[in-house]
């Protein structure tokens, strides 16, 4: 109401009055009471009157304010929550809880139980050595309390059920501690051999003496990295004594032939003996060394000139890094000066198969080891239909290899993968398409952009796969090649760090995880000075890192510098070598030309006599900087015969693929090492 306004606002300006007059608005009432007293004076009655009860109004207003407050708080809370979840804002709550990966969580119980067992071992049998401190953990405190001394020294036969991991005979020393712990732990590896020797008093002592009590060099895992490491150790330290523990139970062997050369041989006998013919006709075994090369374990400790011994059938389950002791799953242990973890990895399983029944699983192979190869080879001999799941290196190589093999036995191969083309995550799209066409031309049925949703067993011992696209496939055997899970069970039991991004044990550029402990090969997530932290799962890297670790174990302290390469052959006609980070998500520049007959893997091996491509580098003559053969003009339809693909990260070359171009790896290696950015990569390609 104008009247109330009057008291609050200043005198109207003359402009307003004129404006009012001009517009014909009758503002005479709004003269704020300063002009003639035409209005009657205000009275108390004109004061605003309460429209209702104060309380009710107050409540109403409060309700409104409360609602506003609630909405405001809710929105603020939601914002904070969204900020935290999206990772935009780091709240810096403090160092995160140690994460050990999914697989290890389930084994916690096992590991903990084993810990208790193995830890309590020392006091029992090594009394004479007066081994004082056992790292008795707090979990032991609980079992000690709960168990009574009634358990001790009972002969094994009387309690077979309660203690499958048969307690070691500790006759005259009924240490409640260990008895309690041992009878407690039920989920542990069983040692049936222990049960038989129930009569012997110091049964454990007998166990300990079959491997040395102490070795200067301990290598966990007997794969490619281990070989490179023990060779490097022996080269530096002539009389070194090296103990190698093989979880897989085999002498060290090369893995690449399992998916390549071994399938292309026509000599079944040789294949069964795991000998293969290289492309040039020379035969060799997949095993790195003959059995004689290795010193028998019993002799290692006393052999004057040292040696390398392989222990099979045991696994190391815990390392006491500080005290430098390794504990095995059969309760034997060994102390060391320097240790290398080269445990490699296990093939990744597919959940859809884990839940399938036993009769399906017997027709499924998770391909990695020699025994997997032998099994698959048997199946292939019978001329069946094999389905491969996975379109990466292993999957594609196996597809081509099996395709070749099954031609003779009238079997067939199907390959299923979620990417659009073979090697889809490695090669740029155009090359991946070309590779896929090549694989198809070998007679393999390819089903891209698919994965298996359901698996059932079908009649005649076959397996029925149902894909996400709705397609159904009935097959005799399934091979799963979907990646590798590094074997890091030791991390949790031994206090080692695991990398969450890449998986594997985290080590520095010198491959050290902790003092006197190194990791090499597939299981090592290391810091590459040139390319950043990464984990590489290739043969040459295993050798390079194994050798580096071996050298560092003998005191070199060198960082990882020699960039490892890798190669892949899709049959004898198409192959490529690569180095560095080769990830198809990076922008690439390819320089290509048409290939000639000289540019095939076969030709390379014929010329240099060496099938392991990492060797051909040294043997071939790379002194001249010119091309090894002349490129021809490209055809109308692009033919990706041969060429060089550069992978760029922030315009610096971080990876190179030499497509059907061989023996130029040293130059490629140099380019990566220099880490410069080049304007015209075709000049570099020359």
């Amino acid at each position, binding site marked *: 109401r104008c009247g109330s306004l009057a008291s609050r606002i200043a005198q109207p300006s003359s402009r307003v009055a004129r404006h009012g007059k001009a517009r014909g608005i009758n503002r005479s009432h709004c003269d704020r009471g300063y002009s003639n007293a035409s209005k009657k004076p205000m009275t108390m009655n004109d004061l605003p009157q309460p429209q209702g009860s104060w309380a009710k109004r107050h409540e109403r207003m409060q309700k409104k304010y409360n609602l506003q407050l609630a909405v405001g708080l809710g929105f603020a809370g939601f914002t904070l929550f969204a900020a935290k979840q999206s990772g935009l804002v780091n709240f810096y709550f403090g160092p995160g809880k140690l994460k050990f990966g999914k697989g290890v969580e389930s084994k916690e119980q096992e590991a903990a139980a084993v810990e208790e067992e193995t830890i309590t071992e020392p006091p029992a049998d090594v009394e004479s050595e007066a081994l004082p401190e056992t790292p008795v953990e707090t979990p032991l405190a609980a079992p000690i309390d709960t168990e009574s001394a009634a358990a001790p020294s009972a002969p094994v036969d009387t309690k077979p059920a309660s203690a499958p991991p048969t307690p070691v005979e500790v006759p005259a020393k009924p240490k409640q501690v260990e008895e309690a712990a041992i009878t407690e732990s039920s989920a542990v590896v069983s040692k049936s051999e222990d049960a038989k020797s129930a009569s012997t008093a110091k049964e454990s002592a007998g166990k300990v003496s079959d491997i040395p009590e102490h070795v200067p060099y301990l290598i966990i895992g007997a794969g490619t990295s281990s070989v490179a490491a023990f060779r490097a150790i022996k080269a530096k330290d002539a009389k070194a004594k090296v103990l190698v523990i093989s979880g897989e139970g085999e002498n060290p062997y090369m893995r690449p032939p399992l998916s390549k050369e071994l399938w292309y041989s026509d000599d079944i006998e040789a294949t069964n003996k795991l000998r293969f013919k290289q492309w040039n006709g*020379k035969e060799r075994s997949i095993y790195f060394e003959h059995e004689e090369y290795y010193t028998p374990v019993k002799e290692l400790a006393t052999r004057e000139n040292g040696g390398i011994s392989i222990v099979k059938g045991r696994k190391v389950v815990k390392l006491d890094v500080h005290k430098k002791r390794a504990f095995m799953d059969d309760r034997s242990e060994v102390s060391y000066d320097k240790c290398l973890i080269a445990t490699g990895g296990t093939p990744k399983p597919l959940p859809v198969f884990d839940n399938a029944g036993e009769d399906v699983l017997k027709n499924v192979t998770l391909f990695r080891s020699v025994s997997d190869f032998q099994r698959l080879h048997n199946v292939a001999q019978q001329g069946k239909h094999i389905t491969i799941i996975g379109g990466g290196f292993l999957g594609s190589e196996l597809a081509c290899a099996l395709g070749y093999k099954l031609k003779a036995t009238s079997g067939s191969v199907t390959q299923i993968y979620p990417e659009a083309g073979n090697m889809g995550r490695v090669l740029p799209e155009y090359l991946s398409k070309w590779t896929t066409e090549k694989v198809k031309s070998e007679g393999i049925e390819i089903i891209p952009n698919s994965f298996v949703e359901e698996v059932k067993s079908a009649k005649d011992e076959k397996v029925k796969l149902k894909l996400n696209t709705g397609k159904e496939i009935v097959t005799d055997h399934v091979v799963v090649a979907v990646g590798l899970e590094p074997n890091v069970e030791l991390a949790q039991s031994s206090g080692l760090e695991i990398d969450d991004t890449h998986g594997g044990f985290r080590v520095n550029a010198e491959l050290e995880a902790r003092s006197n402990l190194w990791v090499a090969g597939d299981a090592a997530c290391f810091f590459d000075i040139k390319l950043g932290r990464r984990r590489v799962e290739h043969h040459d890297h295993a050798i390079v890192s194994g050798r580096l670790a071996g050298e560092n174990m003998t005191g070199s302290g060198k960082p990882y510098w020699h960039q490892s390469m890798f190669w892949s052959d899709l049959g004898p006609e198409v192959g490529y070598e690569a180095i560095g980070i080769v990830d198809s998500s990076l922008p690439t520049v390819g320089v290509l030309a048409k290939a000639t007959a000289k540019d095939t893997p076969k030709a390379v091996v014929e010329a240099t006599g060496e099938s392991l491509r990492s060797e051909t580098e040294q043997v071939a003559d790379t002194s001249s900087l010119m091309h090894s053969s002349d490129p021809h003009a490209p055809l109308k339809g692009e033919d990706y015969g041969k060429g060089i693909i550069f992978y760029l990260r922030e315009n610096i070359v971080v990876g190179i693929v030499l497509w059907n171009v061989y023996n130029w790896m040293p130059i490629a290696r140099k380019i990566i090492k*220099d880490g410069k950015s080049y304007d015209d990569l075709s000049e570099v390609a020359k």
Partner: protein
Amino acid sequence: MSYCKQEGKDRVVFVTEEDHNAPAAVSLPEEDEPPAGLIQPDGEINWACPCLGGMTTGPCGVEFRESFTCFHYSTADPKGSDCFEPFSRMTECMSQYPNVYGSKNDDREMPKDELTSEDSSEIGHSEVSAKA
């Protein structure tokens, strides 16, 4: 004529013979360290040299090193004639491991020039060379 095309983030360059046969405009810097040979700059034997194959790391590695060291520092004429004893110990040791040191086996090749002091590129078995 070379031509280029772009497929998304991937660039492809097709080159012709003429363009590629011209010398490269970009030159890579020289190798900073030539690969180490059998004899190190200070005259010591480099036991990690791939030219020695598996001789240094095998079961007879120590015997081999003794005989080779003796040969290397020998001043007699002909060189090494005063090293009969270490050599005989080595041959005796090697005879105990025919499968490792067999000379006629297909799966293992002896390095051809173990007694020369020159660098060689022979590789006895699958050992990868170090670049420095």
